[in-house]
C-alpha cells in the first residue's frame, strides 16, 4: 500500500496503523498556530499596556511564554493538539503511540529553532521530506509523531439502497477495492462507472442483473454498503 501509515505494536499484542500527517497539513496547522500566537501576544499587549512599567514586564513575560510554551501547554493538556492541529485534524503522539508528555513536547518545540535554520524552516523541510514519517528534527530528538486524528466512524443511517452480502468471501484488499469504487461513483461519468462495474459482471449475482432489476454498478454499490456495515 502506498498509504503513509506507521505500524505500532502495542503491549496488547496488536498493531495500530497510524495515519502519519504530511508536510501540507502540518504546515497549515503551523500557520494557524502562528496567527493565534500573534493574536495572543496582541491581546496581552492590549491588557498590560495600561499598567506602566510593571505591564511592560508582564508583556515581555507573556511574549516569552507564548513564543516558547504555547504549543507545549496545548499538546500536554489538550490531547496532543494545538488549536491549529485541532482545526487541521492532526495530533502529536510519542513514537510508541502513547500520549505526549512534558519532556517530549518541550524538546520538540524548543528544537523548532534548529528546524528554522538556516532560513524559514529549511532544515525542518529537508528533514521532513527525507524521513519516512515526515519528522522534523524536533520530532527525531523527542521521539514524537504527528498523525491524523482518527475519527470514530458511525453507520450512515440515511440509505436509499439495502446492503447486499457478496456471494463469496472477500479478502480485505478486494473489499477495499469495492468500497473505493462505490465511494468514487459520484465523481465518475456513468459510462465509466458501468465500464468498471462490467469487469466484475461474471462474478456478481447474474440472475438479478438478467431480470433487469439492477445494473452491475448498483449491485456493487449495495455490496459496498454491506461491507461497510449495513446489514
Amino acid at each position, binding site marked *: 500500500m502506498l498509504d503513509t501509515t506507521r505500524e505500532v505494536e502495542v503491549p496488547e499484542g496488536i498493531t495500530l496503523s497510524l495515519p502519519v500527517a504530511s508536510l501540507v497539513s502540518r504546515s497549515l496547522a503551523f500557520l494557524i498556530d502562528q496567527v493565534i500566537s500573534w493574536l495572543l501576544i496582541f491581546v496581552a499587549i492590549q491588557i498590560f499596556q495600561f499598567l506602566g512599567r*510593571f505591564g511592560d*514586564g508582564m508583556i515581555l513575560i507573556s511574549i516569552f511564554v507564548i513564543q516558547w510554551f504555547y504549543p507545549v501547554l496545548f499538546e500536554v493538556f489538550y490531547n496532543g493538539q494545538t488549536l491549529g492541529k485541532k482545526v487541521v485534524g492532526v495530533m502529536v503522539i510519542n513514537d510508541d503511540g502513547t*500520549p505526549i508528555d*512534558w519532556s517530549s513536547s*518541550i524538546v520538540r518545540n524548543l528544537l523548532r*529553532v*534548529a528546524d528554522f535554520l538556516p532560513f524559514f524552516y529549511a532544515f525542518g523541510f529537508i528533514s521532513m521530506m527525507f524521513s519516512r514519517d515526515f519528522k522534523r528534527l524536533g520530532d*527525531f530528538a523527542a521521539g514524537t509523531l504527528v498523525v491524523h486524528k482518527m475519527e470514530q466512524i458511525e453507520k450512515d443511517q440515511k440509505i436509499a439502497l439495502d446492503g447486499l452480502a457478496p456471494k463469496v468471501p472477500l479478502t480485505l484488499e478486494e473489499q477495499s477495492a469495492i468500497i473505493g469504487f462505490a465511494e468514487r461513483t459520484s465523481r465518475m461519468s456513468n459510462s465509466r462507472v458501468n465500464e468498471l462495474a462490467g469487469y466484475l459482471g461474471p462474478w456478481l449475482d447474474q440472475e438479478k442483473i438478467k431480470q433487469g432489476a439492477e445494473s452491475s454498478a448498483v449491485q456493487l454499490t449495495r455490496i459496498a454498503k454491506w461491507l*461497510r456495515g449495513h446489514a
Partner: protein
Amino acid sequence: MRQEEFEQRYQPEWKAFQDSIEIAEKFSRRRGDNQKVLDGFAEHYRQVCYCLALARERQYSPYLIQKLETLVFRGHQIFYQKRLGIFKRIYQFIVFGLPNAVREQATFVWIATALFYLPGLIVFAIVLVFPELVYAVVDPDMVSNIESMYDPTADRLGRERQSDTDFMMFGHYIRNNIGIAFQSFAGGIIGTLGTQFFLIYNGVFFGAIDAHIINIGYQETFYGFVAGHSSYELTGIVLSGAAGLQLGWAVIAPGQFSRKQALINAGKRGMVLMYGAIFLLLIAAFVEAFWSSISSVPPTTKYWVGGAGWLIVILYFTLLGRGRRV
C-alpha cells in the same frame, strides 16, 4: 461467526468502552466521572483489542476494522497516559534530580564549562594588555552603551530604578536569557556546532567587556551589579550548553544505538539539564532585576552576596541528592 452476529454480540461492550473514553477525553470532568471511566476500563480495553485481532484475522469489512482500530487507539491514549503530579516532580527535581543529572553528565558539563570560560579568559587577558582590541570583539556602539550603563560619575538617582521598572527588567531578562539558552540547546543538534558557537561567542563577549571595564576603571559599579546573579546566570548558560553538546554528540557518535534512538536518549537526558538551566536562569533574572539593581547597597555587601551565590551553586551540585533516586 458471521460479521453481523459478531457485531451484535460485542456491540454493547464497544459502546460502553466508547462512552468511558468520551468521558475521559473531556477537558473538564465532573466529580464521579473518574470512577465511571475506571469501572471496567481495562477489561473493555482488552476486549476491544481482542475483537480487533479477531476482525482482522477473519477479514471482516474495513468499516468494522477501522471502527475498532479507532476505539483501540483512543483507549490506548487514555490507558497509557502518564501521571502528571507536577508539584511533587518539581520538588524531587530540585532536591536530587538536577544535581544527580549534572554529576552523571559531568563530562559534557566540564566541556561546556571549558568552551565557555577558556576563550573568555584568553580574550580577557589579551584586552587587559591591548585595551584597544576590545573594539575588534565588541561593536563600538555596544561598548559605549555599556560604558554609560556602569559610569560611576553618572547621576546616581538615574540608575536607582523604581520597583515597577525592576519588574520590566525581570521580564526582559527572562525573555532574553532563557530564549538564548533554548537556542543554544537547539543549535546543538547540528553536530554540537550551534552550541559551540554560542558558548565561545558569549565567553569572548563577557571576557572582552570585563577587561574593558577594568581598563577604564569602572570596576566598582560593574562588579557590584553583576556579582549577585553571576553564579546562577553563568552556570545556567553552561548547563544549557552541556545539554546542546549532548544532543550533538548523539548525532556524531551514537555508540551502540541507532542515530535516531541515540538522539531520543540524548534529548531525554539533555532536557533534565535544560530544566536546570531554566531554573537557574529564572533565579538569575529575579536576582538581577530586584537585587543587583539596588544602588544603595554598598559594593562590599554585593560582593559577599555574590560569593555566597557561587558557594551555594557549587555545594548544591556537589553535595545535594547523593544516593537518592527517583
